[in-house]
């Protein structure tokens, strides 16, 4: 069959005056872009293999390398851009479904960037977080319980199980399989050090990480990989995965090639055989069915663990969340359409779902209107990129945020969006032992702690600026937000006023 040449998107530019032919780039590149030519004594590069992960650029001791966007161009066409043309060529070459990774890169509006945060002046003065206590600790779980008393008048403890966090940030679900052992270890240790949680994703929990159970959220997805009594009991909370922001409405598929011996043990499936998570849970066709899974997990763990239900942000998210809030779940996690993934069909990733900002605002409003907001806590992710996004999310109604992509960036990810190839040069989205060892968990965990600690300081600064000294007082406080560059409809859906619209 005719294979049409697809020109590379990037060029590897090597400054020959700086290059000392040390061949580090060659050894570092799992994509085999670089090679040494013994005849000329010079390094060569095959840019058709380059994914622009910047591993070589970062490690070149003489800074001789840079990766630039190619200026080779097709006849310019605003409708048929090079990427669009390439996708057609790829599919005509292979007949395959286009597969991509990480979050939706398309230029959809980012509503976080169209929201501005308030600050106090004169009255209700700002608070200096360096001098005065700021409460960033919070609890996630169901709050609506009847107060009951013992015969002697003392209050009975009827509060359902809660998750205690010292910062409103958790690490979102990433399975062992999609990311490496060392990446998981980094996340687990960081969660412990920070007083928060990481999430196993649907790939089971490695035996070595049971010791971080107090800071672990385990996932139960349609494939039920690695789900058993001990797994459920070890965790601090259990998350039922109904959907994922990067690929709403479709299941997961870990190719057999990525199922190494260790991944196989963790997922409790044979090595080398595809791991397929079907799109639906085949026992859930209604909120009543969902309630059944929630209740069965509660029974199996003797009502000691909060149950999270995670859904992708989709068009009717508010109505779905209303159902979940009545299903007995303690926490709802919502994942926006810019959330990351280890692999998703390109068309799904780029075209399905809605922005997390809209879904969150609508869900919080709906649950308040129905008087069931305190039945559940709300967790949001996909994508939360900074402490400012966290503050805006909480003001829109979230209890806390999941971060995934930001955490991977802290571990060295350069967002080349090639996780699906399994050849991550940064040792994150790979199972190849030689690549995995490039990520040192001692350093990885420190970097995650640095990131979240820095965000925590910034959150305290912004809260202090608003004259707010606890997260409780910020949650759902949409008067602390103003919109900029938004239409009336967008303002209405977000429930915020336009910048300059004074009370």
């Amino acid at each position: 069959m005719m294979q049409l040449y697809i020109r590379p998107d990037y060029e590897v530019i090597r400054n020959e005056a700086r290059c000392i032919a040390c061949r580090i780039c060659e050894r570092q590149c799992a994509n085999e872009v670089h090679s040494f030519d013994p005849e000329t004594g010079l390094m060569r590069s095959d840019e058709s293999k380059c994914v622009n992960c910047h591993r070589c650029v970062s490690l070149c001791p003489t800074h001789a390398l840079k990766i630039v966007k190619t200026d080779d161009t097709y006849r310019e066409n605003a409708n048929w851009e090079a990427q669009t043309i390439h996708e057609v060529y790829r599919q005509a070459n292979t007949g395959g479904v286009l597969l991509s990774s990480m979050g939706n890169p398309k230029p959809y509006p980012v509503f976080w960037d169209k929201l501005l945060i308030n600050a106090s002046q004169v009255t209700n003065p700002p608070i200096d977080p360096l001098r005065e206590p700021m409460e960033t600790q919070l609890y996630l779980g169901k709050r609506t319980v009847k107060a009951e008393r013992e015969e002697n008048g003392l209050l009975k403890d009827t509060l359902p199980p809660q998750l205690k966090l010292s910062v409103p940030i958790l690490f979102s679900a990433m399975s062992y399989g999609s990311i490496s052992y060392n990446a998981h270890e980094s996340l687990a240790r960081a969660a412990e050090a920070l007083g928060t949680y990481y999430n196993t994703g649907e790939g089971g929990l490695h035996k070595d990480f049971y010791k971080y159970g107090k800071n672990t959220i385990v996932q139960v997805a349609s494939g039920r990989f690695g789900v058993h009594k001990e797994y459920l009991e070890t965790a601090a909370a259990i998350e039922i995965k109904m959907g994922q922001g990067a690929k709403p409405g479709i299941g997961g598929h870990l190719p057999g090639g990525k199922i190494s011996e260790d991944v196989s043990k963790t997922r409790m499936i044979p090595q080398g055989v595809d791991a397929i998570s079907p799109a639906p849970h085949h026992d859930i066709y209604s909120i009543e069915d969902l309630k059944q899974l929630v209740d069965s997990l509660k029974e199996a763990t003797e009502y000691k663990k909060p149950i999270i239900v995670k859904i992708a942000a989709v068009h009717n998210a508010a109505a779905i969340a209303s159902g979940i809030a009545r299903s007995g779940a303690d926490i709802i996690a919502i994942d926006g359409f810019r959330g990351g993934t280890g692999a998703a069909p390109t068309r799904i990733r780029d075209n399905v779902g809605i922005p997390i900002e809209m879904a969150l605002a609508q869900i919080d409003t709906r649950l308040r209107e129905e008087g069931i907001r305190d039945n559940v806590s709300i967790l949001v992710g996909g994508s939360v990129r900074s402490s400012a996004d966290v503050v805006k999310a909480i003001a829109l109604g979230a209890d806390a945020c999941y971060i995934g992509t930001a955490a991977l960036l802290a571990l060295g990810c350069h967002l080349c969006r090639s996780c699906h190839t399994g050849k991550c040069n940064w040792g994150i989205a790979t199972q190849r032992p030689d690549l995995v060892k490039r990520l040192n968990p001692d350093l990885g965990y420190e970097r995650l702690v640095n990131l979240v600690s820095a965000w925590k300081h910034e959150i305290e600064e912004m809260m202090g600026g608003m004259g707010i000294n606890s997260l409780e007082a910020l949650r759902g406080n949409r008067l602390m937000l103003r919109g900029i560059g938004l239409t009336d409809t967008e303002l209405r859906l977000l429930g915020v006023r336009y910048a300059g619209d004074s009370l």
Partner: protein
Amino acid sequence: MKIYANGMHYAALNAAVRQSKEDTEIFGCVGQRYLGAGLEDRKIVIHGTPGNALGAYLNGAELTVDGNVQEATGDTMNGGVIEVHGSAGDATGYAMRGGKIFIEGDVGYRCGIHMKAYLSHRPAIVIGGRAGSFLGEYQAGGTLIVLGGHTEHKPIVGNFCGTGMHGGEILLRCDALDAALPAQVKAERIQGPGSEEAVSLVKEWCARFGKDETPYLTATYYRLTPNAENPYRQMYTPN
């Protein structure tokens, strides 16, 4: 220990079962759900009709029911035995990884969906009668046996048997395969249940329900297995 379950809420009944820490007999069960969820090392006999998700996450306990069971029996079961002297509803043995389920009668839709095996975990479901549609959908391991002991003149399995199957085996005791099979599944006609493991499962089913082994061990079976371990390998193009 004996528990009289009439009118008890499932949470109270389950708590009583958990606390008893010994073999338990439940009388007058009327639809209480999640009985035996996650239990290990004990025998529970249930008189009456338990509700959905009987033995979910079961981890070694042995449950016997002297009647029918409802939906999602043995959901995500990891070990142990569920023996049903009657028929079972939909999604029996969903995502089961270990242990055995023996059903004297029929099962509903989606039985053994996403069943998987792992090392010593070799899950099995043996069904005395017929199975509904979607039997063994996405099956990734383990053994499903349908013995076809029924007098209705209906096919032994419904539609879409083994769709998406990529591991394990399905054995259907019948002389002719009248169900259309999906592309991922291949069928071979054999005399007797085949492997030693399958023979011992059929024998165990006969012993548990007091049936004569001979017609079950000598009959014709169709053995269904997946065409490939990686059915979707060719589906994607890196972008």
